[in-house]
């Protein structure tokens, strides 16, 4: 934390000698094309761009569209559940149930495969990972573009599923139902297969980029924690996703050719499908949450003006979560004829994941302790994250406990738990990240007041939607049912009302951000006073990010940053070289590994 006297002396210093201010040179924005570019030329310059930032921005637009689509499905689910009888989705019981099955399936599948998995790594990671490394681009720019094009292909398959006969298997495609249902499993699984390769390409790219393209001076333990999180995520993406791919190939073959691997009528074993599926999909849960934790690790120190507490513990805990995440898939099958021994082992391993997660939470809290906390929008989201993720994480332990899981399995408790982790965790952190990096990515400041109001609405709406579901679950309300007994109605109506508030909050947040593109104040290079490299170029950056190679310093030391009213943002103050002070930092030079 910086003392006020330190800030004062820095301000005096730059007033006396403005050359001690580090201000990045300004160049043409990566968002715009040179004047005289034709319309189609302009479109092509986006669609076939190799610039990681443009790919990231396209990803951002794409996943927001997917989020809207998935959110609408969630709305159908919530409003159908306003009372226990068929209302919104059909006149008769049967119609309503069929439509309800499709709504929750597509909600889950779209949110998981099209939104959450690519959300932070592919959108924000793509834009900021190379910049945090002081690099010009990711290691394989063409593969990066291919990843986005594959994502679009996968999304089209999903839209096609939606427009044809829909899908009613649940997002997990459990056999044998998925091999017999009349809905369009083939289109949907092909979509997921393609999205899997999109995810693998992104992950592979990030691992190679972090391994081989770090600048001189940035050792592993001087990397921003965002990179540690994304790196761990990328390893899971590369190692877990292919298993899902082959599982889906087998499922497609089972459905089209009857290969008898998963179909009990032909001698296959449906539980084998569950093992294969969760061998990917449990690590995939960490694909979703690790980048979220990584964002929080960036946001909290910046808005507390204090070095992150326990850097190496946070870094190692990301890797630990990634590795342990591969060993816990069996906890999805506690009630599916798993042997007692296997269940006990999987239960114990599940509990062990809470250790690195706890390490992170306590380190964030300790970072905030005695910090000079500024409740800017990203920090508000980060605080929401802490609250919601802690609830989500702790309720996970209930489900990991064997005896309790038998009672809670397939109830609303599970639904509430994973929404607290996935939405309360990942989505909230994603919003924190979007608000944190918005000025850098788009070069404009949004309206702080309204952004914070949106944050509050999201927080309240979220809890109103999902907290009642914990209660519903413990009372025995099963998930995936279109109707229910009257005793559950109060909590279901609370939940649906919460959905409305949550929706309003999200639309408001989106509106505030979009409005800023038109009338936002021009963003300074470093509006929050962060010390990581992406803030050491102009906002928005140029095509190759850095006009001058930035100095690699400590990512969480804020001593030399001070708010400069002339810039409207923070500036870094370098030591007074004329008085014989030695430069504390070395300029980053190109290096080979």
């Amino acid at each position, binding site marked *: 934390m910086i003392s006020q006297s330190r800030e004062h002396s820095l301000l005096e210093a730059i007033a006396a000698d403005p050359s001690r201010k580090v201000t990045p040179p300004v160049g043409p924005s990566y968002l715009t094309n040179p004047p005289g570019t034709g319309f189609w030329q302009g479109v092509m310059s986006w669609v076939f*761009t*190799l610039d990681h930032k443009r790919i990231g921005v396209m990803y951002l637009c794409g996943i927001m569209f997917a989020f809207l689509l998935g959110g609408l499905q969630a709305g159908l689910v919530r409003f159908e559940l306003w009372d226990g009888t068929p209302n919104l989705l059909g006149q008769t019981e049967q119609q309503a149930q069929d439509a309800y099955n499709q709504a929750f399936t597509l909600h889950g599948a779209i949110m998981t495969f099209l939104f959450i998995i690519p959300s932070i790594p592919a959108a924000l990671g793509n834009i900021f990972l190379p910049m945090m490394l002081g*690099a*010009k*681009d*990711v*290691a*394989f*720019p*063409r*593969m*990066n573009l*291919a990843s986005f094009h594959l994502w679009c292909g996968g999304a089209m398959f999903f839209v096609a599923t939606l427009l044809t006969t829909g899908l009613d298997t649940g997002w997990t495609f459990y056999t044998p139902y998925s091999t017999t249902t009349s809905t369009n499993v083939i289109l949907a699984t092909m979509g997921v297969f393609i999205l899997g*390769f999109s995810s*693998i*390409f992104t992950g*592979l*790219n990030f*691992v*190679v*980029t972090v*391994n*081989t*393209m770090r600048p001189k001076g940035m050792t592993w333990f001087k990397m921003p924690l965002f990179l540690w999180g994304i790196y761990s995520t990328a390893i899971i993406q*590369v*190692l*877990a*996703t*292919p*298993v899902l*791919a*082959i*599982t889906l*190939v*087998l499922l497609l*073959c089972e459905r*089209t*050719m*009857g*290969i*008898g*691997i998963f179909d*009990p*009528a*032909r*001698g*296959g*074993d449906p539980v*084998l499908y569950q093992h*294969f599926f969760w061998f990917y999909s449990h690590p995939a849960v960490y694909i979703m949450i690790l980048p979220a934790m990584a964002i929080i690790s960036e946001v909290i120190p910046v808005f507390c003006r204090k070095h992150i507490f326990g850097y190496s513990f946070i870094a190692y805990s990301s890797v630990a979560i990634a590795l342990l995440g591969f060993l816990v898939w069996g906890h999805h099958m506690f009630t599916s*004829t798993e042997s007692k021994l296997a269940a006990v082992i999987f239960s114990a391993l599940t509990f062990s994941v809470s250790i690195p997660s706890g390490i992170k939470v306590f380190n964030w809290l300790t970072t905030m302790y005695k910090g000079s906390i500024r409740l800017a929008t990203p920090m508000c989201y980060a605080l929401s994250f802490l609250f919601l993720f802690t609830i989500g994480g702790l309720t996970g332990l209930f489900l990991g406990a064997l005896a309790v899981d038998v009672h809670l399995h397939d109830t609303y408790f599970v639904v509430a738990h994973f929404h607290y982790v996935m939405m309360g965790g990942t989505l909230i952190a994603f919003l924190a990240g979007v608000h944190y990096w918005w000025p850098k990515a788009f070069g404009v400041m949004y309206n702080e007041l309204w952004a914070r109001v949106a944050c509050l609405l999201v927080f309240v709406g979220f809890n109103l939607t999902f907290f009642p579901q914990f209660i519903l679950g413990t009372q025995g309300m099963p998930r995936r049912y279109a109707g229910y007994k009257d005793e559950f109605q109060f909590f279901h109506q609370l939940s649906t009302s919460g959905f409305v508030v949550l929706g309003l909050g999200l639309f408001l947040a989106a509106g505030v951000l979009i409005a800023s593109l038109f009338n936002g104040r021009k963003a300074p290079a470093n509006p929050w006073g962060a010390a990581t490299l992406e803030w050491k170029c102009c906002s928005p950056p140029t*095509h*190759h990010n850095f006009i001058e190679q930035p100095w690699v310093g400590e990512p969480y030391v804020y001593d030399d940053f001070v708010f400069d009213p002339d810039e409207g943002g923070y500036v870094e103050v370098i030591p007074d070289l004329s008085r014989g002070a030695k430069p504390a930092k070395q300029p980053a030079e*190109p*290096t*080979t*590994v």
Partner: protein
Amino acid sequence: MADAATLEAPETQPHHDGGDHGHDHHEHHPFHAHHFDSMDQQFEAGKLGIWLFLAQEVLFFSGLFAAYTVYRYHHPEVFVNAHTHLNVWLGTLNTIVLLASSLAIAWGVRAAMRNDRQTILFTHVFTLACAALFMGVKTVEYTHKWDEGINVAGFYTYDESAHGHGTPAHGAWHERMPAIIATTLGVGLLVSLVGVWMTSADRVVSGWTVGSIGLSILFIGLGIVVAKCVMPDARQLALMDAAHGGAHHAAHDDHGTDPHAAESHAETSATEPAAVESAATEPAATDAAAAEPAVATPPDPNFGPANFFSIYFIMTGVHAVHIIAGMIAITWIVARTAANHFSSDYYGPVEYVGLYWHLVDLVWIYLFPLMYLIH
């Protein structure tokens, strides 16, 4: 499935996306991508990339190997019996062919390091020929089984009692085979000659590319011919059938007392009550069952040779898709070598494709004993 070419492309081809890339240091290699600081960094990035891609491939296949393991553990007798339909000699031939191709491509990588363009070309073309030969042999194996009605479980129409073991070749594919051989050999030869002519007419790059494609087609034809020669004829089959019949009965006697088989029944009893009954009566029924053809009565009425062949076709099929992807990648290397792109300063793509090809071979090295050499 991503073919290797997709993976290679990004780091190996020069980008000309406009603008000054700010290369003000030392002379600029034409294949140095703008965002790498040096050629070494570029090479290392590519190499790590391909290794990660291979790790991904291993995990892709791992699901299939896991399925194989689970079902072989639960139904060993089905695997032992069903695998006798596979021709060990064709499997051995393909193994030798792939090992030779791996040797050649490793030689080619070494040649690239030594600036030996000619050797890169010949080793890669040789590898391509081996790959095509492999595909030709596989064609014969597949079509022969389809003719017999041996297919994935959903299309499995093979009837042991009607055929006896190892039917002499006949059927739709068998009848079509002479035409397929004639076409592949003819077209392959023609295209190869066009390639040779183009090369001699100073169109080196397209000449080698066309020649490679022609050679691939030609060797698919040759592979089919070779496999047809190795395939036993009707008289040999009759002799083998007699020998195999005894072996089948012995194998079948085993499974009645097989503890694994009994265990698997106990586990599935919740969903299939009938299985319990059959398990209980199994030892008593052994004598009666022994009189019948072995593969017709597996202990789990639902799991039989059809399931083995599902696994066989999917595993070898996915492997074959990887061979085809590898052939495309190798052709790409041949074309780029012909265009004189590679030197000891820049040979990354040669090495990356080589590594990929080794992995494809390695998968076959595991598939061969697991499918053809079961006891």
